[in-house]
C-alpha cells in the first residue's frame, strides 16, 4: 500500500518534470557576444540560447557567453515561419542602444540612454521564413526584451516555440539569410 501511495501520490510530479526537460524546445536564438570596447577584429563568443525569452520575460540577469556582463554588445538572430500574412504588434525594450531588424531591414531603434525605453510598431509579416535580428550595446546592468503579440494579448517575448536559430551557427555571408527550409 505504501508503495502504491508513493507511486501515485509522489512519483508523477518528478516524472512530469523530467518529461518537460526532455521535450523542452531546442535552442531558439543564435547569440553573438563581444566585449563592448572591442572594436577591432576577433571572433565574438557565439552561443545558441535556449533561455533567452526567459531573460526577456522575467528580468533575469542577462549572462552573455564569455563577455563582461556589465559591458558588452550582442546580436541575437532567429528565424520565424509565418504561415499567413498578418500584422503583428512588436516592441523592443532596452536600457542601452538597441535595434530590431526584420529580414535585414531595421524597423525599430532605441537611442543609447541609460534609462529603459521602448519602441514599437505594428509590423506586416508576409508568409514565409523571416530573419529576426536584435542588437544591443550595453553598459551597466543590461536589460532588453523583444516582445510581440501573436494572439491579440499583451506582447510577450518570442520564445523557443515560435522561432529557430537557422541551420548553421556560422554567420551568414553578406546579403544571405541564415534562414532556410530544413
Amino acid at each position, binding site marked *: 500500500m505504501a508503495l502504491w501511495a508513493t507511486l501515485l501520490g*509522489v512519483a508523477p510530479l518528478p516524472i512530469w518534470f523530467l518529461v518537460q526537460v526532455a521535450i523542452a524546445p531546442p535552442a531558439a536564438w543564435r547569440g553573438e557576444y563581444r566585449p563592448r570596447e572591442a572594436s577591432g577584429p576577433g571572433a565574438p563568443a557565439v552561443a545558441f540560447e535556449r533561455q533567452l525569452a526567459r531573460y526577456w520575460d522575467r528580468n*533575469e540577469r542577462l549572462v552573455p557567453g564569455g563577455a563582461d556582463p556589465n559591458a558588452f554588445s550582442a546580436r541575437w538572430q532567429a528565424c520565424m515561419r509565418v504561415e499567413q500574412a498578418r500584422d503583428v504588434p512588436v516592441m523592443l525594450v532596452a536600457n542601452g542602444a538597441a535595434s530590431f531588424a526584420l529580414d535585414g531591414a531595421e524597423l525599430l531603434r532605441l537611442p543609447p540612454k541609460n534609462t529603459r525605453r521602448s519602441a*514599437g510598431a505594428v509590423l506586416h509579416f508576409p508568409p514565409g521564413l523571416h530573419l529576426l535580428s536584435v542588437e544591443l550595446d550595453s553598459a551597466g546592468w543590461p536589460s532588453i526584451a523583444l516582445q510581440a503579440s501573436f494572439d491579440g494579448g499583451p506582447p510577450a517575448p518570442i520564445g523557443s516555440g515560435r522561432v529557430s536559430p537557422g541551420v548553421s551557427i556560422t554567420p551568414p555571408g553578406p546579403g544571405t539569410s541564415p534562414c532556410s527550409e530544413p
Partner: protein
Amino acid sequence: MIVPLAAPAARLFDAGLGALEPRPLRDPLDVWADRASLVVLTLLSAVVIATLGDYGLTYDEEPHIRYGERVLEFYTGGFRASHLVRGSSYGAAFDLLAALVRRISPWDAYRTNHVLCAFVAELGLLGTWRLGRLVAGPLGGLLGLSFLVLTPVYYGHQFNNPKDIPFATGYVWGLYFIARLAMAASRSGRDTLASLGGRRFWVWLALALALGMCVRVGGAMLIGYLLLFVALVTLERAWIESRSAARELWPVWLGTLLSIAGGWLLLLASWPRLLLDPVHGPQSAIETVSKYKAYDSPTLLAGRSIPSQKVPWDYLPTYFAIQLPELTTACFVLGVALVSALSVWALARRRRQPWGWLLLVLAVLLPPAYAIVRGSTLYNGLRHFLFIIPPLAVLAGAFAALLLRAAARHGRVWLGLALGVLGLFGADQVWALYRTHPHQHAFFNRASGGLARAIDRYETEYYGAVYQELGDKLVREVWAKRRDEYLSRTFLVAGCGSNLFFKRNLPQNFQFTAMRNAGNADYYVTYARDGCLKRFRDRELVTSVQRDGGTLGVARDMKRRARAGASARAR
C-alpha cells in the same frame, strides 16, 4: 451510588483506551479507506501538476535561490565559503537541491523552485498519511491526509514556501519514525527490531531526523522527542512489566543513539556553516533562531498593529483558531482532550500508554507553547508554525476515525450521518480551496468572518504571491485601454514590498520605482500587507485581485483621480 456509576465509566475508559491501540487491518471501512487514500493522492498529484504555474513567487524565495547557488559553489569550489554561506542560520539541503535542479530545468529559477517545493510537499502529504495510518489505521490515514489537504492555509504554502513546507515535511516524517519506534518498543521488547522491519529502520530514522533538521535547525526538537519517548517507554516497561523487560530495550537505545549520530552527520554534511564549525556552528545557529531579533516589523492582530517582537500570548492561538477549518479545530481539541484523559486513566490503571497519540499531542502543542513562553518574534500569522499542521491534522483525523468507527458500530444510520457530516465538510473545504485559488494561504474560516473581515485586521496576503495575478491583470488592462502608448513607452510602477515582485511579475516595459517616487509613477500596485491597500485610494482603480469578498491586491492609475464613490467601492 459511586460503584454502579464508576463501573460503566471504567468500561468506557477501557474501551476508549482499546480504541487507541494499533489495529489489525480487516475492517471493511479500513479497506475502503486505503482505496480512497490512493484516489485522493492520485487526484492531488494531478491537481498539483495542473495548477503549479498559477502560484506566484514569494519574498522568501529569492534569498534562498541566492543561498542555494552559493552553497553549490561551496561544494564544487574547494569548500570556500562566502559570507552568506558562513553565516546562514538555515540548513541548505533544500536550496542546494533546488540549485542542482535549476541546472537542468527548462524554466526560470522560481518556477523550478515551485516544482521542487511541491514535490517536497507531496512527500509531506505521504508522511502525514502514513503517520495517520500508523496511529489510527487506514481510516485515520485517509482522514488525517484529508484534513491536511483541506486546510487552505497549508495547501497554498505547498507551492512557493521554500522554508516552512520542507521543514513541515521533515517534521512529519521524523514523527512517523519516532511513533513507529515508541509503539513497537512499548509492546515488542526483545523483538522490537524485527517488528520494525530490521536494521534498515535505523537508517530511515537517521534520514528522517536529518530531513527534519536540514532546513530549520529547530528540527532538532525531534531528537528531544525521540529520546524522551524511548526513555518513557523504557520506564513504562520497567513499571508495568519488570526491570528485565526494560533492559531488553538496550538494542533500541543503541539504534536510537546511532540514528541520532547518523542524522547529525548527514545534517553537518549538508549545511556548510555546521560543516565548517561542527562545535559552535549548530549552537550559534540555534541561538540565532531561538532568539531571533533581527526582524521587527509590525504585524496585525484583531486590527491592532503590534511589533513582531512584542506579540501577545494569544497571537498564535488566535491565528490557528481563525485560519484552520472549524471541524479540524474541533476534532483536534476533542482528540487532545480524549488522549489526555485516557493517558491519565492508563497511568492510574498501570496500563500501556497510547504513545503514538501522545507524540502527536506533544508535537502540536509544545512548539507554540515554547514560543509563547519564550516571547519569540512572530509575524506572518501562523506561517512559521505550519509544521505543526500535519500532526495536528493527523490527530484530528484520528479522532474523526474513532467517531466514524463508533458510528459504524451503532448501525448504518449513524455511519451515514457521520459520513454525511464529513462529506459536507470536505465539499465545503474543496469549494474554499477552489474559491481562493491560488491564494489559499490567505484563507480565514467562517467563524472568524472570512477573508473579507480579516483584511486590515489580520495578516492576509503578506507573502507577495498575489503580484503574479495582479501583474497579469494590470498588463492586460493597459494593453486593452492604452494600446498605442503601450508599444512606444515604458510605464513607471510603484508599490509595496520587494522590487522583485515587480521585476519578475511585470514585462520590461513596466519599470519599478521606489515608493518615495510614487507621485511620479504611472501605476501604484500593491498587496494587502502593511496597510498598503489604504494608500492612494483617491486614485482610479485599474484592477484588483479579490477572493472571498476580500481585496488581496490593487493596481491604481496614479495619473487619474478616482470618481466620487469609486474609491469607496474598491475597498
